[in-house]
């Protein structure tokens, strides 16, 4: 339905996009006692680290090969070797996850080759889990880095499935990076309520949910263990969430022979009906009363919320899967997606209920929002300047969210998560109405040409 366009300008202004190496690094952070390592100059790591610290308000494990100018030109073997040895000796991780960057990809470092040499040279590392993903900064976006990294982890760490019988209760869940740790916990609860035993790869809910760790750890303080990933072949089911996870799902199917079911959306009524029925089917259990009631609550919330969200002119900037999930739901609530910007290509974009999707930046989003009189803005925290200039209600969604608390626990999945999202959005709109759009004796003075609906756009 939507036409995907790429604006023809040379300069990105107020970027929406973040780079793919840090998307990859975040995926590694969902593995227990992991140390993500960016192969690049130290700034590559430092910027990503600060970004995640500000978003999650947690200590973030992330290291660098600290490439200097000379090392960059001569090749980074020594730096990769030293970095791995230093991390291995000092922080005692269970896995090191390595992502390349723009600098080392421009030179063309063969990191897979390096790792092989390092394993040969240092016997203690011969079987130590190290996963390398190629993620040049000058290609693709954050979501792509996550996607490639999860697929690579499946390929490298999941043991080929033996013929032994699969455990019907075990479910592999491969979540996209648009889900928060809170979303993952919600899904875990739902699945466990069906008697299923889910294992999330990656599991940010166990590492970046803000719990107090057992001890100071320079590595991740939780997440799925490497040995648990190895046994994923024994699960009878695989569920992928977000179109970005198709690749990891295919890798899992190839490795283990377990087919996967992909849920592109988990926000909204219908997507959750499908999801809940799938769980009921694979578990062989009826839908628990709790979810029957939650469904009713969501329907009621949608009825109450449509008065406020219906007819809203929405400007939304997010990575493809988050955009498709929440954007489609806003459409189902009667909103119009009039200014839509995303970061990278994806098959879901064409199916978005909008006329046009731009692969662009927040300047594009703001310009179109202004032209088209949008009165609700959804994007990450960098939208705050645009929101102030447009003077419209602003809901923060996606990474980074550095100027509000609770980024890790915002819900958009499940009946309950969707219900709460409706309330948050409708409340924003109501507050905005009270503050900025109370009628005055002059509101309708312009006659029919100045209908009440237009009042929303005139600030």
């Amino acid at each position: 339905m939507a036409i995907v366009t790429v604006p023809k300008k040379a300069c990105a202004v107020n970027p929406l996009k973040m780079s793919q190496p840090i998307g990859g690094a975040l995926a590694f952070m969902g593995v227990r006692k992991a140390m993500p390592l960016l192969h690049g100059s130290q700034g590559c790591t430092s910027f990503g680290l600060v970004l995640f610290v500000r978003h999650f308000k947690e200590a973030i494990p992330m290291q660098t090969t600290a490439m200097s100018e000379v090392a960059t030109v001569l090749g980074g073997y020594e730096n990769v070797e030293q970095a791995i040895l230093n991390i291995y000796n000092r922080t005692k991780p269970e896995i090191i996850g390595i992502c390349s960057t723009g600098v080392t990809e421009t030179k063309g470092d063969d990191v897979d080759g390096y790792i092989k040499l390092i394993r040969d040279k240092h016997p203690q590392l011969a079987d130590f889990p190290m996963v390398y993903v190629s993620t040049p900064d000058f290609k693709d976006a954050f979501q792509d880095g996550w996607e490639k990294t999860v697929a690579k982890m499946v390929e490298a760490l999941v043991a080929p499935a033996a013929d032994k019988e699969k455990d019907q209760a075990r479910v592999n869940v491969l979540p996209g990076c648009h889900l928060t740790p809170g979303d993952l916990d919600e899904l875990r609860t739902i699945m466990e309520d069906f008697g299923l035993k889910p294992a999330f790869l990656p599991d940010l809910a166990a590492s970046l949910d803000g719990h107090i760790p057992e001890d100071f750890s320079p590595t991740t303080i939780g997440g799925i263990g490497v040995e648990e990933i190895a046994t994923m072949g024994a699960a009878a089911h695989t569920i992928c969430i977000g179109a970005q996870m198709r690749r990891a799902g295919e890798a899992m199917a190839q490795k283990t022979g377990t087919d996967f079911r992909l849920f592109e959306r988990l926000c909204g009524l219908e997507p959750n009906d499908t999801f809940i029925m799938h769980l009921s089917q694979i578990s062989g259990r009826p839908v628990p009363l709790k979810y029957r009631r939650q469904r009713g609550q969501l329907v009621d919330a949608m009825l109450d919320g449509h008065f406020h969200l219906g007819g809203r002119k929405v400007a939304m900037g997010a990575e493809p899967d988050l955009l498709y999930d929440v954007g489609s739901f806003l459409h189902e609530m009667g909103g119009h997606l009039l200014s839509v910007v995303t970061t990278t290509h994806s098959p879901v974009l064409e199916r978005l209920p909008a006329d046009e999707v731009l692969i662009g930046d927040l300047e594009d989003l703001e310009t179109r929002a202004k032209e088209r009189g949008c009165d609700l803005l959804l994007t990450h925290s960098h939208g705050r300047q645009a929101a102030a200039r447009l003077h419209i209600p602003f809901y923060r969604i996606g990474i980074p969210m550095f100027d509000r608390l609770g980024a890790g626990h915002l819900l958009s999945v499940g009946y309950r998560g969707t219900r709460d999202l409706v309330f948050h959005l409708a409340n924003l709109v109501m507050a905005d109405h009270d503050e900025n759009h109370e009628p005055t004796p002059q509101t309708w003075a312009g006659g029919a040409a100045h209908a009440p609906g237009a009042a929303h756009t005139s600030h």
Partner: protein
Amino acid sequence: MSSLSATIQEVFNEPGCAKNQNKSEAEKKKGCTKQLQPGGAAGGCAFDGAKIALQPFTDVAHLVHGPIACEGNSWDNRGAKSSGSNLWRTSFTTDINETDVVFGGEKRLFKSIKEIIEKYDPPAIFVYQTCVPAMIGDDIDAVCKAAKEKFGTPVIPVNSPGFVGPKNLGNKLAGEAILDHVIGTQEPEYTTPYDINIIGEYNLSGELWQIKPLLDELGIRILACISGDGKYKDVASSHRAKAAMMVCSKAMINVARKMEERYGIPFFEGSFYGIEDSSDSLREIARMLIERGADAELMERTEALIAREEKKAWDAIAKFKPRFAGKKVLLITGGVKSWSVVAALQEAGLDLVGTSVKKSTKEDKERIKELMGQDAHMIEDMTPREMYKMLKDAKADIMLSGGRSQFIALKAAMPWLDINQERHHAYMGYVGMVKLVEEIDKALYNPVWEQVRKPAPWDNPENSWQNRAIAEMEAEAAALAADPVKAEAARRAKKICNCKSVDLGTIEDAVKAHALTTVEGVREHTHASSGCGACSGRIEEIFEAMGVVAAPPPAQAAPPAPEIAPDPLAAELKRRARKACGCKNVTVGTIEDLVREKGLKNIAEVRAATEANTGCGNCEERIESLLDDLLAPAALEAAE
């Protein structure tokens, strides 16, 4: 790139930088390229440093030429404030793609400059070079020059790709860029004898505005602040100032020094953190302006203002002093902030149990010793566990640090206050000091600590991770205490030089084997201190500990000067000149002499004779230990 490496060499030769003075000619050439450790580094890159230094210029467009990582992951992340334009918060990047990497990114850069001028019409554009375009050979100097000629807007190349070094090198490269392309390119509308520049102040959280009203009141005009709340025109015409104050000791020393060299603007290094520092800085500004032609009555007005502001601040702080009695602070931060904040906290009656000196120069450390006494815990490098133990053992009630270590304190359920650049509060000048004290009080006395320290009702408190961590550390310490061989090994294994990974034992052995007396000698034999050079102070401390009479500190050793013979007299004079009491300005030597000559026996007598320890009272322990040292031999003799 040749001009970039020439600029970097120039920065490494900066005579104003204490770290550079630690190095030999050959090491300066090597510069900072060796000091980053793969897998063990944590700081930002040179591009980050350049951006931090220049981004607070509010009305210019900052264009980052590189892939999305450099700008997309980091923009709008600093709390600098603007009184006017907010263009600096609009992010511009060429976001180069694979095609650009193959065919070159110069055209995209040129077009980007054009688009920015058409859409935003800024007074100038700063173009930041990053690693990838530097590697593929994009000549940003040429593009900026062409764009400037074509569009008539100044376009300033900032050549500071991340891989040339760490953040502080980037600060200086940014300074070079404005020295070369901005400062002195315009003339101010008018000048007064009261015009000053403030260099190295970024107006984080608006803290410049805690000082500016005072300067306004005195009729002193900030001609240019580099770069907090800076405007392009002000900086371009900043060469007409009469004097300058440099706020952050290392970040932009090259700017201050070269402006003195080129335009005859004298500068001093000062701080507005803490009451006394603020007063000293105001006095120094007035003094320099008078020297340069301002009316001498300025000093009277300055003194009157200082007296008024100090009284207001002291009155406000006085009510906290009883609440802070016996409260101990652990301060983890870098460089200049250490000593300036130490003074500030002591003024509030807090007891400092330790401060980090990881990024501090030798000079910084001397100042800390002056302020905190000889037995100050100077923490080189603490593991999170050690930091926690320090907090837990009630050696500290609160930790003040930058954002990175906040989670250690918070996860340990200990009060913590942010004092680095991401903080939300402004702590400069007299009002800022009062604010800092209020914030510490708020953190210390928040009832939340009692709540969050309670174990879950189903947990066995004995088995909490905190207790286990403490037990583990105690077991380790006990094992070392019981086994002298192990303890010695542990002592010798202490890392002295982080760049070259040289431990204490290696250095001690080398000193003994080759009878070394200088840092240069140690460097030759062990390679220690041949990286960033920051550990040369630590090596001198090893000499002291081993009883080797060390060579004079490198700060005094002019590069071509021949080896100066060790001078025990100078060392003794220096030792005696150290402050025992900061408030009443009493030196160690004064007390020692009085003890010897007049036979003072206890602190009360010292107080009566010298006024030492009659101010804040923090030096009590220091003086007691001084007395112990002096009186112990006499006591022993008496016992025999």
